[in-house]
């Protein structure tokens, strides 16, 4: 036995062996299971002026599909992977020979422009194929080969059933018209720019999660061309609505799956403009005041500031619209009239109170949707809000006012002549207004009592969100379905319904990009 392994040399060698083994293991473990982004290779073949691009992740072994199959199982499918294969085989296809060759990582459909006058569109299907040669064979077998031709050195097949197909390396292109096929060939040869190189596409692609089941990109300008956008009526409508920028600038959507549920995200290059204050990323402070059994929760912020900005910019246009469509002379006139009906100088007095977060929540203590409790909770200037509400109550003829102490807070209940109640109270300078039962539940909520913010279902759903929260709605699907009519949810839907956990739909302005995001969580 060589003595080199004894003493210090042996220790050093052993340490080296251990370190090398650990390093190799760690690198492989880390890199192999890391969720890699879907490589949208098809976007490199799509012309830059595509109006619509819809891509699918076709790697069934990717984390997205693994998660999607698992979620399908939670929703009641016994063997979703097997069912997928069996379904194809029942339709007369051999999975390995006829389907698998198409699944090379991503597949896409693009539409270049819609001509509403001719009712026509240009576009093609492009897919990265696992076995492009076999895909071409399948196309010829299924759609028939009418003729062979060539464009810029690329051979293509004219299909009997209509359309044109060509192989471009790993990709196969199937176009309905020859011009579209030629456009793709031009892009593949670098003679025309690709969508993958368009700045707005890249920005949206980077902003949204790189891991998804499906990705959609829409450029209204490219899709509709000048037809709609030059139409003065459409143009004016978009401008007056203040949504022109959001509608006309490119936008993208992704749908994906992860451990806890399905998620979606949408993002637009357009700016949020005046509604920006409502879409700022934040965490809800009011969720901690809402009882844990809330089935619906909506929260937003800075309503007063947003209102001021919108009215300041568009007052003239709004006044014109009101004059044309109503008996009022202006917005102020309409707001004054609405305010006078509830004892205020203008309804703006109420809007101006809402300078912080405002939330609305509803729940069903009796387990049926017909008898809900509902509250509006808002961060306000307490003395100002109290004055406004007392004037509202006092203005009602024959109103009966009752005051109670709930959890150390004063609760006021006003009932009009018909006995219809309206309750309000203040807790920590936050206005709580709504049904008497709702207000009482919020005011009585102790610091250790379960609130929406501590509800596991809410927390899990928030945790799954792919973006920051801005203005959002949370739906406790389990509570909603429990409160709904069971007869409406039969069979398989009932099984799926039992697994549905929570839903959040959210709009946020993050890093200059307006995004709509959401998540649907599913439990075991």
């Amino acid at each position: 036995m060589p003595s080199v392994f004894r003493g210090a040399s042996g220790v050093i060698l052993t340490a080296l062996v251990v370190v090398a083994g650990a390093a190799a293991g760690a690198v492989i473990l880390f890199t192999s299971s890391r969720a890699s982004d879907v490589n949208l290779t098809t976007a490199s073949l799509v012309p830059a002026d595509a109006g619509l691009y819809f891509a699918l992740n076709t790697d069934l072994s990717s984390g997205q599909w693994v998660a999607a199959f698992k979620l399908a199982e939670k929703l009641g499918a016994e063997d979703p992977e097997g069912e997928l294969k069996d379904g194809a085989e029942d339709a007369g296809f051999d999975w390995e020979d006829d389907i698998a060759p198409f699944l090379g990582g991503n597949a896409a459909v693009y539409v270049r422009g819609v001509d509403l006058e001719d009712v026509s569109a240009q576009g093609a299907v492009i897919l990265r194929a696992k076995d492009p040669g076999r895909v071409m064979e399948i196309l010829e077998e299924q759609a028939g080969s009418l003729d062979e031709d060539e464009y810029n050195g690329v051979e293509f097949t004219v299909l009997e059933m209509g359309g044109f197909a060509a192989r471009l390396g790993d990709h196969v292109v199937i176009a309905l018209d020859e011009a579209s096929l030629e456009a793709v060939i031009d892009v593949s040869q670098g003679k025309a720019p690709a969508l993958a190189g368009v700045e707005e596409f890249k920005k949206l692609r980077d902003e949204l999660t790189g891991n998804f089941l499906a990705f959609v990109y829409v450029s209204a300008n490219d899709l509709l061309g000048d037809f709609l956008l030059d139409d003065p009526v459409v143009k004016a409508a978009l401008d007056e609505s203040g949504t022109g920028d959001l509608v006309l600038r490119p936008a993208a959507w992704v749908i994906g799956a992860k451990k806890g549920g399905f998620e979606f995200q949408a993002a637009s290059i357009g700016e949020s403009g005046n509604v920006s204050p409502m879409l700022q990323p934040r965490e809800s402070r009011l969720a901690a005041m809402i009882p844990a059994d809330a089935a619906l929760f909506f929260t937003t912020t800075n309503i007063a500031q947003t209102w001021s900005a919108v009215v300041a910019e568009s007052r003239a246009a709004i006044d014109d619209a009101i004059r044309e469509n109503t008996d009022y002379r202006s917005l102020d006139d309409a707001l004054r009239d609405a305010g006078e009906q509830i004892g205020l100088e203008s309804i703006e007095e109420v809007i101006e109170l809402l300078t912080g977060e405002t939330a609305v929540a509803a729940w069903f203590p009796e387990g049926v949707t017909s008898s809900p409790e509902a509250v509006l909770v808002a961060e306000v200037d307490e003395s100002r809000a109290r004055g406004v509400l007392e004037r509202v109550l006092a203005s009602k003829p024959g109103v009966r006012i009752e005051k109670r102490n709930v959890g150390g807070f004063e609760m006021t209940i006003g009932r009009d002549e018909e006995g219809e109640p309206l309750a309000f109270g203040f807790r920590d300078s936050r206005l709580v207004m709504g049904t008497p039962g709702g207000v009482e539940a919020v005011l009585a909520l102790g610091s250790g009592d379960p609130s929406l913010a501590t509800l596991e279902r809410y927390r899990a759903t928030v945790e799954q969100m792919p973006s920051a929260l801005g203005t959002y709605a949370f739906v406790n699907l389990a509570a909603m379905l429990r409160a709904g009519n069971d007869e409406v949810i039969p069979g398989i839907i009932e099984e799926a319904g039992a697994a549905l956990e929570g839903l959040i739909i959210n709009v946020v302005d993050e890093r200059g990009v307006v995004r709509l995001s959401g998540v649907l969580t599913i439990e075991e």
Partner: protein
Amino acid sequence: MAAGWRRGLELTRLGVGPLALAAFFLPWAHGPGPLSATEFSGYRLVGYAGRLQALDLSIGEGAALWLARLLILAVAVAATWQTLLAPRHRSHPAYPLSGWYLVALAAIALGIGLARAGLVVPPPGLLLLAIAGGLFAVGELWSGRRAPTALAEFPGAG
């Protein structure tokens, strides 16, 4: 042993690590169901099992997946050790340990492949792993060495 044979044996031993390492990144098996046309290398199997682990699994399922990942991952570790130790440090206990591990895992993987697909040519990764394991076994048996002997030779052992 003739000098030529000895030299051949040396080369054989030097090849085990690189062959096993290459095998780790080449296809071992096809997937089940709709993944039946998807080839899985050792590397992809570790990753796929990792993606499955990210889901809500029972403790038993999670533990089984961890075990499977570690067993496959250990092939890369064993191959690394073989590559490092085969040239000059074959007396180190990690050398026979990693070599016999490759032999055992190749045998098990071939057995599973045989049970699943019958008597067919195994996928290239598995074939290469079997060759690496076979070369190691031949080298060790030819030279008359056994794993316990090598372990006993190392300081602190036996």
